[in-house]
């Protein structure tokens, strides 16, 4: 009853029409043979989750992360493409930045359970809330990126368009990385404990997406910076992702199984193939575009994988109990206190 091997009942007490948002099937208890580490002493309440998994919608939130990353780096490619005289890269970057920001905003609003109150986000600026800070990053970014794209498309007020493009490019990297704080600043163990690696994974993913978009949209004459950025981003993402999974230890098991495992494997394959393709095939239009698409797909799959891994982690009581027990044990060992729980000090 209080051990890890009990099949967890579906969450009868919750009032969602279905379990899709929280990954049905993942809410079940773990079977003994799936455990990768010995957890003989791990106890729980009927194997039920201890924390609540995010109610964030899928695909809205992973797509928002992907589009935010894509837009953040594309704005930089657009501005620098303009400064270095690469018209097709400039145009691609600017349009992708605006499209990503607008699309991302749409997904973010749609993700709310009360979308009509989106503007309540702008009531306050709370540095303790990454979502609040992120809204204040996204709003100006989307404004400047959209203005730049409008100037690009219409050919009007080019000077002002260049200037606003630079502003968007400066904000862009913040848009691409803050989402890592958004995820890791939760009680979800797999996200929280990755708070050192996740920004790097997401930055790499953003570079792969923006660079990939540049490869898709710009001419062979202009696409060298995009290829460099994309290949570098893919490499960083692959390495940082691997480091993250290893450092997570027990908490990293969610990346190796279930839907998250499949997504992460697919992501790695796409990134590797896209990077190789970008290096070898940059000088041909079709192969450059194909590589760019693979890199973007890899970036998006990473976001979906990280999202799913977090849901699985939140639903697994072992992810809460085992590391926290370990923490208590380590604390007691260093404090040289007796084996009583710290609360008992008040006896």
């Amino acid at each position, binding site marked *: 009853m209080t051990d890890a091997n009990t099949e967890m009942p579906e969450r009868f007490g919750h009032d969602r029409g279905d379990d899709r948002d929280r990954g049905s099937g993942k809410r079940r208890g773990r079977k003994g043979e799936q455990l990768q580490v010995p957890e003989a002493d791990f106890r729980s309440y009927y194997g039920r989750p201890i924390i609540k998994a995010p109610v964030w919608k899928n695909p809205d939130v992973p797509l928002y992360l992907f589009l935010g990353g894509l837009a953040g780096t594309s704005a930089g490619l657009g501005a620098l493409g303009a400064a270095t005289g690469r018209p097709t890269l400039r145009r691609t970057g600017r349009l992708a930045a605006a499209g990503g920001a607008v699309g991302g905003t749409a997904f973010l609003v749609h993700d709310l359970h009360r979308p009509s109150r989106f503007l309540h986000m702008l009531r306050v600026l709370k540095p303790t809330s990454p*979502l609040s800070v992120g809204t204040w990053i996204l709003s100006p970014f989307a404004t400047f990126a959209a203005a730049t794209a409008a100037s690009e498309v219409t050919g009007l007020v080019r000077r002002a368009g260049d200037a606003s493009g630079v502003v968007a490019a400066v904000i862009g990297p913040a848009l691409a990385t803050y989402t*890592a704080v958004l995820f890791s600043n939760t009680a979800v163990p797999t996200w929280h404990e990755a708070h050192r690696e996740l920004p790097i994974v997401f930055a790499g993913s953003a570079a792969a997406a923006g660079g990939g978009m540049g490869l898709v949209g710009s001419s062979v004459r202009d696409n060298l910076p995009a290829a460099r950025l994309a290949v570098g981003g893919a490499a960083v993402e692959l390495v940082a992702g691997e480091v993250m999974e290893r450092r997570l230890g027990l908490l990293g098991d969610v990346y190796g199984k279930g839907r998250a495992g499949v997504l992460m494997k697919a992501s790695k394959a796409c990134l590797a193939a896209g990077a190789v393709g970008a290096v070898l095939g940059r000088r041909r239009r079709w192969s450059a575009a194909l590589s760019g698409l693979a890199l973007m797909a890899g970036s998006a799959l990473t976001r979906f994988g990280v999202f799913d891994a977090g849901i699985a982690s939140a639903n697994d009581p072992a992810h809460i109990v085992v590391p926290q027990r370990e923490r208590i044990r380590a604390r007691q060992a260093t404090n040289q206190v007796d084996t009583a729980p710290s609360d008992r000090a008040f006896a």
Partner: protein
Amino acid sequence: MTNLFDAFTGTANSLSGPLPDPQTDAGWSDAHPKRVGFFTDTSVCIGCKACEVACKEWNLVPDDGTDASDLYRLTGMSYDNTGDLGASSWRHVAFIEDVRPHGTATPAHGGQETGFLPAGLPAVHGGGNGHTPRDAASAPPGPDPAQPGTVDLLALLPDGGAHGQQTPDDERDVRWLMSSDVCKHCTHAGCLDVCPTGALFRTEFGTVVVQDDICNGCGYCVPSCPYGVIDVRESDGGAHKCTLCYDRLGEGLEPACAKACPTNSIQFGDLDELQAAADARLAELHGRGVHEARLYGRDPDDGVGGDGAFFLLLDEPEVYGMPPDPIVTTRDLPEMWRNAALTAVGLGAALVAAFWKGGRR
């Protein structure tokens, strides 16, 4: 809450650690009332669920989602058919049937003594089931075996049930643990810290409350609570949880659950007085040999700065579905912001580097 600079740099004390006066920290004037809370003494809980019912009635909390295909939603988890806390369950009584064979009553998991069915526990007579006492020598004084009838099991126990309610039969010993769980009204509340709209706020009583007319259902509070308390309600899209009956507090009334609790397992009051009462109760139980008793959420040095609603438990917290060592996620937020800012700078540099000597066409 704290000012911008402090929160980004981590110099603010109010993200974690002990905090004697969360109301003033949240911006209330010094004239605010004392911090209030709950002390839930699970050693006297009888599992009647009066608290769940009273909470639902007073706060007009809707049904938590019965669907017709599963009319009674029996979970198979003992008498617990609520399952967990959520948007429409602000009190949740957990039931644990700790079943063990005879003679295994000694140190339990983790090497800690549970005092589970102490030696010499009297067998139960009566009820006409034809069983003879398993140990006639230690049969208690009590109802005449010749006269079947009901027996006050609690009175027969050496310590008045302080080890949880216990039911012996011929093959096994059953210890019943019951605990009424609730929002902890944390000193450092993850839900409140991350709420981007300001819907969640710290009241003048030191409690944590959602303003339903502000909440936009972003759901960020849900995975940020280290105890899995707050949730978004599908029917209205808003986040909901225990308010510690904010409306009643304003009128000088105690919360509905505490009012309804027939055994005083749920005690409401000023937090400092509850803490003193809890310490005394713990000492009393330890003095009576109930060594498995421990306080949970009482320690202001813990990962959330101590809870406004804390507990006396008879087993490890995880057995009741509570995290053994919760930490408010925002404790690490300054470091996260630093990491993300550095990474953003690195990403900008990578962008510039990608154009380096790329040849101007």
